[in-house]
């Protein structure tokens, strides 16, 4: 297979998101012998990020620099990316299933009159076909799907496909392209950053999450301490957000973030289906809950029936001990 693949890269706070590297790996897997071309948009010079995409497996990168690309808008990014697509006429496109990916890719697919497979967690070759696997029905089932004909277009769920090994001996062209961007019909007035500093929840390897059982905003403190010891991100169920124990930016579930960490530690979370939709694909799930009947135990690999305020401090001590011994 040697199709030409395009990967739409995405930066946050001046660095590429991990899912961009995963998208490059997915594009490589779809087309092992084809060319993989990255695209990056921004208002600053992003050629350094372009090089980073090459270290992670892209062959070359097109950058579009324009004042109108300072923040993402579907019109601005749409015009920039479409102009590269027209020039490159790729056989396939891969992007992360992130806020920007979800907003932009359907517009592109519609413009190009192509199919689009959203939120893939795996990609495989079956005979001649490239087959994507994606969760449906709130993660309770999966489907295998392929593009019937035309552009191989997909978004991938963060943290499900491994990026390639970074290799800074790789080289390739990072070429900037002039695009005339006009008629941007939505204006971003302000962005209120709610997400906390530190580990990006949707890309974290370990997540410590709290539910109603956390009982108060202060109740999240031991969870934060546990997260700090483990280098983990803190998340929450909708219940904890609704009760105002924490900000909605921490919400994991159907609404909110979908996470697939190696280790998910659910503290005082009952395990409603909407929450499971956001985390049930985690590799290992630990449940800590007072109620032995809680639904979360049905998806957990390991469970402790007990009060999280008794269990979590002991866990912190134990993990600290493990670190010292290591």
């Amino acid at each position, binding site marked *: 297979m040697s199709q030409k693949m395009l990967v739409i890269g995405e930066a946050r706070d001046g660095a590429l998101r991990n899912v961009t590297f995963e998208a490059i790996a997915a594009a490589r897997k779809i087309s092992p012998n084809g060319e993989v071309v990255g695209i990056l948009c921004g208002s600053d010079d992003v050629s350094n990020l372009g090089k980073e995409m090459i270290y992670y497996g892209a062959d070359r990168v097109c950058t579009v620099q324009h004042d109108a690309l300072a923040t993402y808008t*579907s019109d601005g990014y749409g015009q920039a990316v479409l102009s590269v697509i027209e020039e490159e006429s790729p056989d396939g496109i891969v992007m992360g299933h992130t806020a920007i990916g979800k907003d932009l890719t359907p517009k592109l697919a519609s413009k190009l009159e192509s199919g689009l497979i959203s939120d893939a967690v795996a990609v495989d070759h079956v005979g001649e076909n490239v087959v994507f696997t994606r969760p449906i029905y709130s993660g309770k*089932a999966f489907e295998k799907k392929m593009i019937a004909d035309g552009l191989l277009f997909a978004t991938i769920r963060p943290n499900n496909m491994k990026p390639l090994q970074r290799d800074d001996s790789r080289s390739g062209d990072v070429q900037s392209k002039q695009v005339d961007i006009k008629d941007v*019909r939505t204006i971003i007035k302000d962005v209120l950053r709610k997400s906390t500093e530190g580990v990006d929840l949707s890309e974290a390897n370990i997540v410590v999450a709290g539910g109603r059982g956390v009982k108060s905003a202060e109740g999240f403190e031991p969870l934060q301490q546990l997260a700090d010891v483990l280098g983990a991100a803190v998340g929450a169920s909708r219940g904890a957000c609704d009760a105002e124990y924490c900000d909605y930016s921490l919400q994991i579930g159907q609404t909110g973030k979908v996470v697939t960490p190696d280790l998910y530690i659910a503290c005082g979370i009952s395990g409603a289906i909407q929450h499971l939709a956001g985390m049930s694909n985690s590799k290992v*799930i630990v449940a800590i809950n007072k109620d032995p009947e809680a639904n979360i135990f049905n998806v957990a690999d390991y469970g402790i*029936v007990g009060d999280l305020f008794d269990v979590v401090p002991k866990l912190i001590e134990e993990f600290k001990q493990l670190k010292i011994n290591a």
Partner: protein
Amino acid sequence: MNIYVLLKRTFDTEEKIVIDNNRIDEEGAEFIINPYDEYAVEEAIQLRDEHGGEVTVVTIGGEEAEKQLRTALAMGADKSVLINTEDDVEEGDQYTTVKILEAFFDDKEADLILAGNVAIDEASGQVGPRLAERLNLPYVTTITDIKIAGETVHIERDVEGDVEKVDASLPLLVTCQQGLNEPRYPSLPGIMKAKKKPLEELELDDLDLDEEDVEMKTKTLEIFLPAEKEAGKVLEGELDDQVKELVSLLRDEAKVL
């Protein structure tokens, strides 16, 4: 103001999922308005009450989707349209849906189109932005607040937990996120009134489309349930010992530390 809502009848994912012959078994299952579309219906009604105009709810599906349309009418929508594809479309994807909606909106003057940001069954989240592109409308996805002030529409949207404030103008398409509002329950008088409200039924023919025009661009090969997870290990004994055991299981058995 001419307000349209795109509505999908969905399988209630709270239900147990049974797969029969590569299809989700719908026998006896509960069907609901896609919860994110419910926010769209509620917001449409509130905007109409504030600014005047009319709310039309549109769905694509079979006869049985009438129930969800009647519910939206009972909540307060004015009119509804069922684009009945039962006889024409065996299987469709987001391309199919948008092709049909594009034809439907061809002769309409919509000021605002509201949709859910994602449907809980297929969960692609494509239909809103895809349709906006076909209709050449600006769009804003995952909105949590919308205010119309003269020519300008002030919107707040959820971007992975951050709040983005966006200004746009009508005509516009938006997709709704949880947090936008609390959808009302239909009242008894509402339910009575809904029975008399218009429900127009269209087929592909009425939209000058035939089967080939809406043929899907993707193909579903297989639907399956995740591998049955082995029952988890609920630890026992003194809490101190449980915690020690958990940490060593995570390190030695699960190998995630």
